[in-house]
């Protein structure tokens, strides 16, 4: 019997050595700021798998961006200025946002069950509708309950494609110590940030950071740059929390049974099609 156990141990050792390449070991988790008891995959990276939701609450980040309290923190010049400022729009994009907020809520792509875009899907729907992460050494896929939205994130930090424009853009990820950094570009210029008509366009570029702060919490941040909409970059921070163990995705068939648009009366602009 002892022989068999030794043989087993040898096999396990072999597996461990092949699963963890020297490069990975070099960048292996050692950041002082991260806890040591994080769940990890065989490749040494934090195991983000599971069901998560935005714990910071619906629109918490936006409120904070305007100088409110809460967990969310707005970075950048306007934060250090210490005054309650909204998104740093250019004058014309500010006019667009204010006009649509008052007169044209039907413009909201979510009213049409469209893919929410980044970072809205992590901030708004995810306070009510969780998302599932499945991960291996090559990919991290995020399956959002809301509108069966999903993002496939290759973890090779490869280049964004050319001539590709999508609602969720194109996501490429890599690990910086224990933080998953996702670079998102290739947006199609059709998404909003919230239900108050805050928006981005095709020049949006997002850098997301997912950092586990414990077995059941992720610190999430999204730094958004869009030079044709905003005068400067801004950052949204949220706490993501793991859902209770027995919970699971309840499929959200949106457009298939979607009636939201009917709730937008003509007086509020339910006439023109905003997406053409």
């Amino acid at each position: 019997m002892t022989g068999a156990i030794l043989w087993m141990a040898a096999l396990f050792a072999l597996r461990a050595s092949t699963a963890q390449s020297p490069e990975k070991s070099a960048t292996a988790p050692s950041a002082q700021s991260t806890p040591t008891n994080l769940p990890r995959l065989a490749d040494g990276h934090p195991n983000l798998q599971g069901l998560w939701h935005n714990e910071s609450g619906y629109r918490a980040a936006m409120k904070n961006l305007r100088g409110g309290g809460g967990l969310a923190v707005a970075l950048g010049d306007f934060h250090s200025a210490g005054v309650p400022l909204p998104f740093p729009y250019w004058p014309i994009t500010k006019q667009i946002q204010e006009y649509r907020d008052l007169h044209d809520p039907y413009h909201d792509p979510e009213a049409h069950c469209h893919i929410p875009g980044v970072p809205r899907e992590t901030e708004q729907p995810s306070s009510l509708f969780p998302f599932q992460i499945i991960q291996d050494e090559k990919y991290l896929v995020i399956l959002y309950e809301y509108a069966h939205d999903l993002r496939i994130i290759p973890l090779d930090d490869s280049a964004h494609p050319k001539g590709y424009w999508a609602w969720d853009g194109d996501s490429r990820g890599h690990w910086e110590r224990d933080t998953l950094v996702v670079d998102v570009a290739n947006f199609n210029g059709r998404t909003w940030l919230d239900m108050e008509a805050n928006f981005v366009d095709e020049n949006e570029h997002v850098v997301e950071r997912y950092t586990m702060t414990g077995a059941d919490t992720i610190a999430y941040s999204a730094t958004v740059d869009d030079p044709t909409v905003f005068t400067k970059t801004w950052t949204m921070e949220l706490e993501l929390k793991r859902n209770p163990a027995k919970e699971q995705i309840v499929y959200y068939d949106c457009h298939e049974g979607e009636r939201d648009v009917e709730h937008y009366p003509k007086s509020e602009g339910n006439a023109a099609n905003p997406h053409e």
Partner: protein
Amino acid sequence: MNKRFFIILTAIFIAPAGVGPKSAPAARSDPKTVSYSPPRLADGRPDFRGIWQARETAYINIEGHRAEAGLRASPSIVVDPADGRIPYLPGALKQRDKNYERRATADPAINCFQAGVPRATFLPTPFQIFQSVGHLAIVYTDNHSYRIVLDSSIPHDDGIDFFMGDSRGHWEGDTLVVDVTDLGDQTWLDAAGNYHSDQLHVVERYTLLGPDTMKYEATLADAMVYARPWTLRLLLYRDKKPGAQIVEDECIDQADGVWHHVSPFDPKALLHHDYQAELNREKNSQ
């Protein structure tokens, strides 16, 4: 325990990829294919990860179709009954024929609805399987659908219908068996009007036959529509192109009230902005 036997058992359960045991023949497996031992995850389960797609044109009609311009004829993928015909109840067959006549407008897929199961498997667009120890999900190109295959020890989420159903998986040897319930009555099985009711119960069987081929079987039971359960079978092929990826598939609701797929590679997918013009236009339209 006999030491030699224990070693063999150990080898079976933790053998590295590619050196695993021969899989036990499953009830419906083709005898000549059972010798393939696929790469495995750390838990010893076959590794289904990758991008897969059917080459058969069963999406047009699973009972087969004639050759058309640019399209070769396709045999039925129904393997049971042996005549390749879906064993409809008499009234249901009439409904199928009605569906066929109206297929150009009645097919739910025309509305950019999710395809349902098993139709999603043999669409002319690829799907990707994500798998890690304890997790498996299938992501389809078409209408950005996905299914999370939870373990069969977790009961089905009864009482709600979903376009892609509710999936529970277990292993029979190296075959992944997925039990799918909670499918509604608003999906079809193909573009030819073959259909089911909300009583549909699907059992899918996924078996790797080689590094780049997978056998897919689905047995459909629906006492409202079929005289008996029946089975379809087809092969799926791995997309080996470098950089292959699932691309976003979203529809846009256009002025005619109809939703249309717009490829993210189509320049029309990109909405250019002239903000002053947009503001003027919106103000004038009020």
